[in-house]
């Protein structure tokens, strides 16, 4: 009871000193809870959406895949089946759905009206199924081939109004139509842009199959279960179609979105975990310092009869209180964070309503558990140390707590761990197989990180001294005082620096990997890509016939190569085995556009009649030689006997493992309607006409916002931008861990200032000016920050370089250390150190000299 009371009093008395620890707990817990609330809300939103849109039973063609859109493939069901379905037992009504995602809608200025978020544009017939979730809020339903309706969000975002003309680019061709209606979602619109036409227009112009449907929505008669209805439908239509109950089709849709959300959830929880880890350092430091400052008091408690366990427990109870307060605030913060995240997503096109805000009961439980457990664990070591304080401490002059020397055992363990980790990294760097290597990389990363944390206090001495000779000497005696203060408690400096180290190590590692990716891609482009221009869709839309023709009309080109992906061809190899592979069908000029080296034969011959190439690995595994015959069965097509004319090297990055053949060869065995759209087009300019050709291509493609033409420079820039965006996203998420680490620096300094009150008074008394006092504290802060930065950047660059060596097997061949980033982070850390010291330095300088000296 008394233990609880003293803990409570202490907690309240030191609430200021606990504040930063509480914020650290709060931030970590808020991030965890925010992630959970956000993903749960998103899931709930989609659940509701799918539940409201799915029919009792849906009948769709077999073999529908995610690749269909890019391949420009549209699978339909004959319209006659509608009447047949209506007669099936238990069917109340059937509606035909004519939906295509292979469409692009452009406004008057040839701008894509699709969502900027990359969500698809969906063209569909305005039928009763749609009416379940969408209501016309302005204008009327579309009738005839020149009328369309769009959803309200798209209309608002893209500033479309009734009467505007749009151009629809679909697989069968393109057409112009007028917006006659605007429809508003009654459930949350996940973000896709919707275009509605009447059924006939959808069938003709979107699907290119008059009278056919992409799926049927079947409604059950009252009393007929969905399962029963499904059975009846299957019995009638046979197994040539896919029949799903409402539950099944909802689950399938949720799976797609759910797996994406899961990736996001675990990624964000991972970053939250890093922040939690960093927070532990802060909490350990706080409690260590509080215990140290209370040494005399604890000695007194021991002297008057408190047991070790009671002291130990009293510190842990304080930690518990901190954990509870921080976590409760964190849970609340998490809900706020989720709402903020939803707002951000809203501006990116994913509209989530706060009405759907889902806080599962597990969320606060998880948040509280993490916050409390982490805090108590972090406080355990300081608590044990408090228990070990002897009653004699009460009698000793408190002064400042004795410098805790970093022990030899700690050094040995840390060195061992680091050495083990380094060895694992070396093994990883030299691994032959990516899978083995990545395991060693993981082990190496973890071991070196723990090793650095363990020897942090020892390194603190070394690194701070080294930094001091470079940075602090110019500040004279104030610099020396700062150096001594930073060195005074190496364990504390080590822990504070290590917290910063973790975040910065990840930043350094990822920046090395990222810039190596860009450098490798650039090198590869220079080395093996002969094409001047690359044409493709960034949004996964097909290169339609219309686009193909437009490209072919561009001027100043020596050749244009079409590249198609022929999916799931079955190859029977000379050794009798059968494998299923995707084939790369292209024009012969593709061999000039992408110079894939061969180990045998001549690549241009692979584009000959009934010829193909196979990659080195496949050839080796199945003993395929040049001149051998491979039997190729095209999916839904015929069977061909093709001669292996070349064996390509596997030591490439682009098109690794591709099997090449001529499009004309494929045409012989695959019906024209099954021929997929181009996945990419490559073009080469006539000598000296590069600029003109580029301009001509751009002009030709101006009307097709779904595809982009890039020259090599643009392409390199695009790669760089994409990598840069990804890195920025990750840095943004790592910022949380870094903020917590910076709070740790502030915390350490603030508590140090309190601890050194008397010294500060003394220094001021004997003539240290306020400005010098502030500078002293700032310099200490800068040195601690730079210590963390140096360790983190060093460690991270090591990890990054190892990862690059390992990924060289996967094409990451060039190591590039992004020095500008590294140097910026290093200098930034110094700035962060300055900022962290602002308040502590101000408080130190403002202390009343006499009061400070008189402090016990």
């Amino acid at each position: 009871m008394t233990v609880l009371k003293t803990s409570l009093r202490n907690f309240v008395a030191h609430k200021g000193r606990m504040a930063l620890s509480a914020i650290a707990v709060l931030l970590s817990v808020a991030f965890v809870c925010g992630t959970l609330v956000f993903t749960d809300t998103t899931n709930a939103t989609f659940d509701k959406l799918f539940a409201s849109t799915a029919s009792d039973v849906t009948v769709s063609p077999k073999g529908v895949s995610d690749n269909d859109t890019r391949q420009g493939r549209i699978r339909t069901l004959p319209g006659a089946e509608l009447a047949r379905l209506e007669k099936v037992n238990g069917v109340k009504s059937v509606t035909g759905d004519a939906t295509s995602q292979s469409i692009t809608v452009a406004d008057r200025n040839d701008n894509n009206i699709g969502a900027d978020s990359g969500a698809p544009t969906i063209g569909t017939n305005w039928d009763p199924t749609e009416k379940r979730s969408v209501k016309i809020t302005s204008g009327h339903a579309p009738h005839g081939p020149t009328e369309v309706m769009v959803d309200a969000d798209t209309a608002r975002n893209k500033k479309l109004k009734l009467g505007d003309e749009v151009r629809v680019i679909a697989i069968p061709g393109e057409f112009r139509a007028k917006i006659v209606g605007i429809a508003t979602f009654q459930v949350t619109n996940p973000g896709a842009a919707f275009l509605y036409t009447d059924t006939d227009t959808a069938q003709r112009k979107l699907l290119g199959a008059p009278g056919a449907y992409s799926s049927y929505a079947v409604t059950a008669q009252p009393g007929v279960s969905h399962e029963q209805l499904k059975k009846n439908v299957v019995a009638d239509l046979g197994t040539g179609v896919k029949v799903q109950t409402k539950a099944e089709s909802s689950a399938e849709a949720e799976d797609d979105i759910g797996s994406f959300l899961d990736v996001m959830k675990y990624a964000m929880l991972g970053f939250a975990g890093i922040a939690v880890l960093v927070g532990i350092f802060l909490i350990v430091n706080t409690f260590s310092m509080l215990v140290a400052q209370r040494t005399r008091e604890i000695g007194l408690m021991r002297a008057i009869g408190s047991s070790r366990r009671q002291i130990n427990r009293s510190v842990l109870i304080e930690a518990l209180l901190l954990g509870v307060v921080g976590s409760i605030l964190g849970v609340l913060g998490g809900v706020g964070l989720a709402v903020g995240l939803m707002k951000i997503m809203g501006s990116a096109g994913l509209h989530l309503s706060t009405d759907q805000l889902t806080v599962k009961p597990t969320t606060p439980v998880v948040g509280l558990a993490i916050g409390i457990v982490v805090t108590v664990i972090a406080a355990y070591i300081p608590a044990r140390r408090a228990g070990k304080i002897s009653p004699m401490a009460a009698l000793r002059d408190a002064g400042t707590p004795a410098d805790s020397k970093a022990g030899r055992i700690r050094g040995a363990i840390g060195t061992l761990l680091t050495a083990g980790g380094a060895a694992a990294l070396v093994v990883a760097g030299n691994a032959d197989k990516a899978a083995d290597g990545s395991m060693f990389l993981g082990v190496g990363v973890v071991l070196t990180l723990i090793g650095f944390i363990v020897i942090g206090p020892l390194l603190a001495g070394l690194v701070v001294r080294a930094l001091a000779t470079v940075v602090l000497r110019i500040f004279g005696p104030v610099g020396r005082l700062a150096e001594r203060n930073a060195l005074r408690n190496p364990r504390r400096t080590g822990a504070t620096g290590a917290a910063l180290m973790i975040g910065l190590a990840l930043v350094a590692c990822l920046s090395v990997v990222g810039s190596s990716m860009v450098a490798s891609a650039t090198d590869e482009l220079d080395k093996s890509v002969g094409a001047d221009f690359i044409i493709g869709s960034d949004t996964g839309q097909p290169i339609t016939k219309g686009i193909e023709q437009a490209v072919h009309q561009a001027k100043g080109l020596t050749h244009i190569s079409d590249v198609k992906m022929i999916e799931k061809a079955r190859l029977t190899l000379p050794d009798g085995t059968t494998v299923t592979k995707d084939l790369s069908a292209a024009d012969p000029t593709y061999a000039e556009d992408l110079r894939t080296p061969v180990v045998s034969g001549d690549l241009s011959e692979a584009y000959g009649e009934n010829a193909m190439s196979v990659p080195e690995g496949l050839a080796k595994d199945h003993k395929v030689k040049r001149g051998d015959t491979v039997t190729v069965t095209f999916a839904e097509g015929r069977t061909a006997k093709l001669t292996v004319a070349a064996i390509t090297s596997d030591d490439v990055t682009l098109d690794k493992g591709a099997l090449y053949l001529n499009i004309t060869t494929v045409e012989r065995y695959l019906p024209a309607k099954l021929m997929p759209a181009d996945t990419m087009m490559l073009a080469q300019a006539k000598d000296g006409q590069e600029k003109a050709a580029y301009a001509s291509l751009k002009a030709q493609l101006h009307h097709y916002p779904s595809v982009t033409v890039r020259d090599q420079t643009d392409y390199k820039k695009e790669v760089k931008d994409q990598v840069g965006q990804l890195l920025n996203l990750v840095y943004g998420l790592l910022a949380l861990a870094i903020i917590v680490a910076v709070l740790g620096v502030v915390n350490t300094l603030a508590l140090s200032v309190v601890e050194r009150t008397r010294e500060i008074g003394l220094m001021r008394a004997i003539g240290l000016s306020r400005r010098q006092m502030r500078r002293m504290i700032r310099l200490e802060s800068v040195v601690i920050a730079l210590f963390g930065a140096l360790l983190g950047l060093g460690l991270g660059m090591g990890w990054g370089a190892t990862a690059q060596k390992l990924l060289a097997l996967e094409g990451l061949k060039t190591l590039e250390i992004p020095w500008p980033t590294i140097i910026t982070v290093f200098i930034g850390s110094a700035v962060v150190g300055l900022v962290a010291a602002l308040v502590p330095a101000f408080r130190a300088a403002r202390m009343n000299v006499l009061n400070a000296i008189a402090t016990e």
Partner: protein
Amino acid sequence: MTTAVSIPRTGGSGGHTAVAARARQVVKAYGSGETRVVALDHVDVDIARGQFTAIMGPSGSGKSTLMHCLAGLDTVSSGQIFIDETEITGLKDKKLTKLRRDRIGFIFQAFNLLPTLSAIENITLPMDIAGRKPERAWLDRVVETVGLSGRLKHRPSQLSGGQQQRVAVARALAARPEIIFGDEPTGNLDSRAGAEVLGFLKRSVDELGQTIVMVTHDPVAASYANRVLYLADGRIVDEMHNPTADLVLERMLHLSPGGDPRTPEDFDARGRVS
């Protein structure tokens, strides 16, 4: 800016007048209205240069406050304080800090040294802060006199209490301040160590011409001084020249409030009003 002009009999740097510090009608009051407490009540005092002055008085008499005000550590409510010819009342923190740094030395009762610095670094700290080079010969002499030659590289935690105070004395002397203020400098020492430090202070006055002002409640400590000032209720009520411990004790008993004789322990060091 004072320079290190060495005048042997004045010890400190740049002092010219016979009075090292003056207080004129100094009032220090805390609080206001009914809770107003007057710690110093129109005090006039002259601190003679080259002399060892002790300030004594019972607990709450204002002796520490007087010293703090004279040293520029505390502000006064009214009145003037001069160090040499410089009026320090009304100076801004910046100038006051510089004054303390360049012209004043301090010895506190305890915790005089920075634990992160070695003895010699502590001794030269005020000069380092000022960016001045210590005068080698003088520094050696000071160090030798206080008997610390062998311990200069030691950290404070490796020194005894007496040694720590001697380092503090050396620090105060090393910069050759015009005046050194001691706040119960021997309060935490046993009598032998205390005698050592006091003897050393006295020698620095007699032989080096240093000016020292010391607050104490210990008649034995006061007996080392040339002159003892007695404070009671914020006023200087008496003084004694060339005191001995017995005379000091007698006078103190005599000065006790209500004439009630008390033991010297009642004149307690905790009288520091802060």
